[in-house]
């Protein structure tokens, strides 16, 4: 296990290094004048000169990358803007802020959104999927399958505004989405995020229902399940202890990957409900041409994806004893 973790972490570091190089090259090396792009829509000549100097654009690109990269581990000095402590992802000239601080500031919103909806879609998705697999071919299965098929064709940008209209504007049943830190006001945190959770989890519930159903159906037709039935084991034990254990592997794998993606920022959801998370940060920085912020968000999101992949592989070995980590 330890060897596996060390090996995978080293591999992940290589991938992250490559991603950071590609991202950096894309954002800084290709555009004609990165300083102009980093300066934002309103740009004074003095500001431009300052940025050009502190971005060290007179140096070769690999050296620029090295400054940026070593800054993550050792911190960097941004002259007038102050010193940026490690891990330093740079300084945003548009926002006039250290990028690391902004990222730390925005992450709790995305984390709350992800955790809340993940709890809902795991419970309902797996529950409905198992129910459908248990009642295969019966009306309950047909209803669950068609409902999840329709819901998985919904888009957040359609379902989100519709839910806002149906639950907030026309009926006032639920509160207009807003983020309040859980440490300040747990009830406000819950009510403020309820509509985004419901919308985000509606679509994901549909996907997990379909996935759970199909992998349960597959497992139930396996020989070992038939053997368990033949030796007289009760239906419930076969279903939960045999088939579910086999189906869990697929679900955990997909969930791990999805979790990594969601933690990097659910852009459309955050945009629809006006939540200031990582996703909204990335779309804002694109609109304001804030390239250094963009690199920071991309790197954080990529790290979350890579890390969650490793966690999934490790968890997979715990669930499925046939898999050996070498």
């Amino acid at each position: 296990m330890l060897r596996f973790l060390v090996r995978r972490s080293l591999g992940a570091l290589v991938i992250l290094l490559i991603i950071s190089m590609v991202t950096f090259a894309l954002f800084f090396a290709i555009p004609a004048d990165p300083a102009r792009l980093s300066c934002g829509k309103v740009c004074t000549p003095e500001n431009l000169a300052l940025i050009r100097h502190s971005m060290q654009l007179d140096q070769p690109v690999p050296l620029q990358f090295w400054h940026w990269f070593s800054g993550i581990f050792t911190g960097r000095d941004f002259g007038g803007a102050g010193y940026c402590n490690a891990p330093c992802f740079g300084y945003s000239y548009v926002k006039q802020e250290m990028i690391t601080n902004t990222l730390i500031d925005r992450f709790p919103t995305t984390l709350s959104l992800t955790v809340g909806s993940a709890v809902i879609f795991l419970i309902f998705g797996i529950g409905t999927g198992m129910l459908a697999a248990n009642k295969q071919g019966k009306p309950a299965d047909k209803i669950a399958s068609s409902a999840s098929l329709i819901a998985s064709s919904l888009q957040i940008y359609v379902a989100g505004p519709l839910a806002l209209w149906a639950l907030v504007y026309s009926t006032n049943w639920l509160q207009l989405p807003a983020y309040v830190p859980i440490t300040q006001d747990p009830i406000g945190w819950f009510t403020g995020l309820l509509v985004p959770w419901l919308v985000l989890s509606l679509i994901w519930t549909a996907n997990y229902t379909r996935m759970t159903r199909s992998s349960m159906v597959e497992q139930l037709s396996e020989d070992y399940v038939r053997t368990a039935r033949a030796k007289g084991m009760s239906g419930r034990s076969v279903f939960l202890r045999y088939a579910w254990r086999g189906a869990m592997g697929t679900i955990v794998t997909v969930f791990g990957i999805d979790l990594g993606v969601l933690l990097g920022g659910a852009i459309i959801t955050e945009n629809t409900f006006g939540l200031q998370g990582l996703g909204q940060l990335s779309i804002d920085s694109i609109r304001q041409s804030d390239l250094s912020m963009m690199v920071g968000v991309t790197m954080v999101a990529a790290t979350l994806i890579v890390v969650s992949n490793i966690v999934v592989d490790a968890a997979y070995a715990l669930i499925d004893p046939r898999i050996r980590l070498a």
Partner: protein
Amino acid sequence: MTNPTQAPTEADTLGTADALSQTETPSAPVFRGLSPGKLMWRRFLRDRTGVISAVIVAIFLLIAICAPLISMLYGKDATTTYGQNDPTLLTDSGLPTGANGGMSGDFWFGLEPGLGRDIFMQLVYGIRTSLIIAVATSVITTVLGVAFGIASGYLGGKTDYFIGRAIDVLMSFPSQIFLIAAMPIVTSLLVPADQNPPGWLPFVAVTLVLSLLGWMSLSRILRATTLSLREREFVEAAKVTGASPARIIFKELLPNLWTPILVQSTLALPAFVTAEAGLSYLGVGVTEPTPDWGRMIANSANYLRTDITFLLFPGLAMVIFVLAFNLLGDSVRDAFDPKTKR
């Protein structure tokens, strides 16, 4: 990941190959019974959901192709600001004067608030935008996926290793963020900032960006299938008789890969439709004045408090379109490969 996953069964892959060679050369000796292609077609026709969704998809395609004709018969186009030309149509705050978003005999689906354009025509021309981009992206990703997939599966060795690692890296990219981030970069690469952007620019930029991150899964599937096909007797026989690699790839391998290629690209198309609309929804996709569903939905969100009609038309059209395409993709897969369980 390096293990070849199970290839489609022998009967299936060979069947498709036969079907294709038969359609290409009609003078070939007549087969007894039904050809696999006909079998597939029969299986598809028996699938009621599949046929209905195929009809819906066909209607959407037809509307997209006949958009100018519809515009002529209906007597309006997508860009004229009727509401601003005729002050009785919109109130001072820019909302249509009529009920339900200004739906009437003249404007079937109502008027767009603010500019006062005809929503029906916007929807009709919006299908064109999303279909052009989605089809172009599907074609490019399929070509890329086939090229890289067969190359790494057939050549193996270093080629396989490098393509595999490149896919690993691309798969680790946060795709949503990357799509948004790549848009301005691709745009600035295509046309210098000081020039006036031509009308095709957003189309090309969106297509390129979506293609860049869309080919990997097809490539992985084809690599696995090629790996197992490569070791089979008919390929060996071709090699022994001295066939060139090009001949083996195009005449021996490719005909056996049509099933996964067709199934994957039918399933990928609706994903590109929603991705394209998502980009426009976020304001980084196709720009005005090209009609686009994603942007229509984004605009309608500003009028949620007053009138839901503006959201309902593009929203429902989008859901029906995507649902029909998804169902069609599932049915195509079932018809080609009846053994896979759903």
